[in-house]
């Protein structure tokens, strides 16, 4: 059997390069005392961009590594997606890390390593590989969340995240054991084949497995009621890591869920569809309503991201090729928007040390560019037309509605309406309240440039999402082949 396996290591080149990059960063940090540490983020970003370009070489290729890792357009999509978002976060960290954190070498190395985990979560078509990749990403995030030495909140957020994460991993593993037991395999296609032959004898065991897997992965993407670590970890983590949590960690969870449920669990769709639909509904409602009551911008965005998870779970409940590509589109739009918002918040925090919502008073006067970008990002998150959020949500809701989940789409539209209220609270502080201190702030060119580039992406997706939608279609085509 093992002789027939395709063990073509060249398929994994981008991840080897990522590993090499991480090693290089660690080595430079350790062994080159004269290497100027403020260059690390630029080195990281440059390396990431080079690997991103390299990984484009697998566009429209289709191959697998020992049946574990599939290199198809879906993987390539997420390679680009994760590497790009890590590069953005690395650049956004530059000033923050230099001023507030020690051990920059380990910081950037862990960022890069976590990207490998995220990519393999999307690429694997086998439960063990998926699980280990998930742990790689999680471990990096545990460390990064508690990275700050001086901030007690960082320790606390890290502790809660780590312990609950280990708890959720245990649940996930137990669920996987049931899946394995009932299907005799951990390969997605073999699981699907086993289930397609009927599940009568072990219906309850299968359901138990599905519930536990859903709980374990629901924890990673922060679905209610498995979400409670999210606000605490978001608030405790260093700001760029909060951005990273909201972008990569979430997207990786969905990448895994999408491939797993479309690849392995389609034959038992009736068993899990209603579960995810129920989780989606409660997640949207709780996330958006609790966000109304937040006073810290990180917690606000944590709850808003929980609300967004609800929208994305809807697409998973209504799983079809249309809703899968809509999910990818929404995920991309959401990550671009969220990163734009976080860049502004990071820049503002670097300059003023404020992360309470009332601390954003008069931002429009003190840092007009940042305020404009943040406002655009928040409008996009709330789903205003012209911004990315509208189209991605519209296509998502439509895809969900056409799969027979109209009631979910109605809840989603209503909850997006509620969300405008708490985004406006921030916009109001920025634009309408008087600043606490006078004077223009000098925003570093790097962060302004990043913010402008991302907000351009927000408008691009919002006005002309055609290309991204086509890419998402291509990426998800094979999932349902």
């Amino acid at each position: 059997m093992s002789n027939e396996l395709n063990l073509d290591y060249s398929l994994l080149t981008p991840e080897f390069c990522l590993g090499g990059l991480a090693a290089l960063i660690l080595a430079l940090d350790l062994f080159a005392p004269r290497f100027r540490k403020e260059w690390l983020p630029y080195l990281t970003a440059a390396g990431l961009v080079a690997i991103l370009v390299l990984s484009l070489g697998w566009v429209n290729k289709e191959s697998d590594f020992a049946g574990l890792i599939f290199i198809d357009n879906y993987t390539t999509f997420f390679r680009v997606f994760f590497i790009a978002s890590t590069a953005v976060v690395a650049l956004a960290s530059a000033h923050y890390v230099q001023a507030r954190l020690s051990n920059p070498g380990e910081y950037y190395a862990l960022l890069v390593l976590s990207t490998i985990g995220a990519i393999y979560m999307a690429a694997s078509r086998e439960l063990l590989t998926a699980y280990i990749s998930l742990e790689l990403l999680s471990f990096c995030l545990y460390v990064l969340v508690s990275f700050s030495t001086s901030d007690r909140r960082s320790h606390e957020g890290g502790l809660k995240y780590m312990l609950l994460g280990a708890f959720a991993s245990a649940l996930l593993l137990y669920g996987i054991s049931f899946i394995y037991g009932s299907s005799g395999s951990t390969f997605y296609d073999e699981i699907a084949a086993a289930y397609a032959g009927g599940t009568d004898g072990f219906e309850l065991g299968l359901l138990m497995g599905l519930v536990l897997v859903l709980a374990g992965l629901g924890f990673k993407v922060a679905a209610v009621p498995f979400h409670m670590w999210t606000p605490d970890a978001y608030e405790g983590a260093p700001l760029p890591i909060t951005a990273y949590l909201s972008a990569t960690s979430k997207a990786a969870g969905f990448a895994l869920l999408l491939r797993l449920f479309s690849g392995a669990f389609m034959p038992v769709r009736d068993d899990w569809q209603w579960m995810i639909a129920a989780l989606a509904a409660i997640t949207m409602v709780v996330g958006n309503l609790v966000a109304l009551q937040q006073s810290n911008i990180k917690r606000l965005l944590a709850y808003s991201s929980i609300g967004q998870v609800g929208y994305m779970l809807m697409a998973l409940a209504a799983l079809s090729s249309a809703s899968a590509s809509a999910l990818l589109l929404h995920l991309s739009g959401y990550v671009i928007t969220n990163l734009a918002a976080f860049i502004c918040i990071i820049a503002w925090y670097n300059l003023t040390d404020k992360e309470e919502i009332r601390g954003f008073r008069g931002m429009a006067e003190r840092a007009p560019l940042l305020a404009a970008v943040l406002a655009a990002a928040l409008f996009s998150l709330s789903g205003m037309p012209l911004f990315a959020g509208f189209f991605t949500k519209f296509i998502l809701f439509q895809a969900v509605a056409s799969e027979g989940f109209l009631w979910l789409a109605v809840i989603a539209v209503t909850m997006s309406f509620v969300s405008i209220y708490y985004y406006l609270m921030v916009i109001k502080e920025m634009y309408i309240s008087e600043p606490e201190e006078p004077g223009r702030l000098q925003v570093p060119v790097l962060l302004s440039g990043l913010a402008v580039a991302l907000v351009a992406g927000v408008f691009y997706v919002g006005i002309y999402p055609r290309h991204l939608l086509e890419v998402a279609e291509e990426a998800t085509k094979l999932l349902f082949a």
Partner: protein
Amino acid sequence: MEAVTQQIPLEHFLVLSAILFSLGVYGVLTRRNAVLILMSIELMLNAASVNMVAFAAYTSPEQFIGIIFAIFIITIAAAEAGLALAIILRIFRYRKTANVDEIDELKW
């Protein structure tokens, strides 16, 4: 002598692992010391490994994926314990407590 699997039904192993798992869950929910919570989680992970190995032995012995899986679970669990202890020790150094009920500055 007959093989073990012919003398003991698979369900026995699964029920035992279910009991260990629920005990672990109970421990996570009630223990207040972070280290003890970690220990309860180890119990749950062990239960999962038992499941894996039992399924491997009974339902798909030629593929033994379950055994491979169990090896990885043990590896990850060890790493997890190490990392979690580093975090717990640091919290303890700053707050002089490892009681999770007292570590609740972040809320609401």
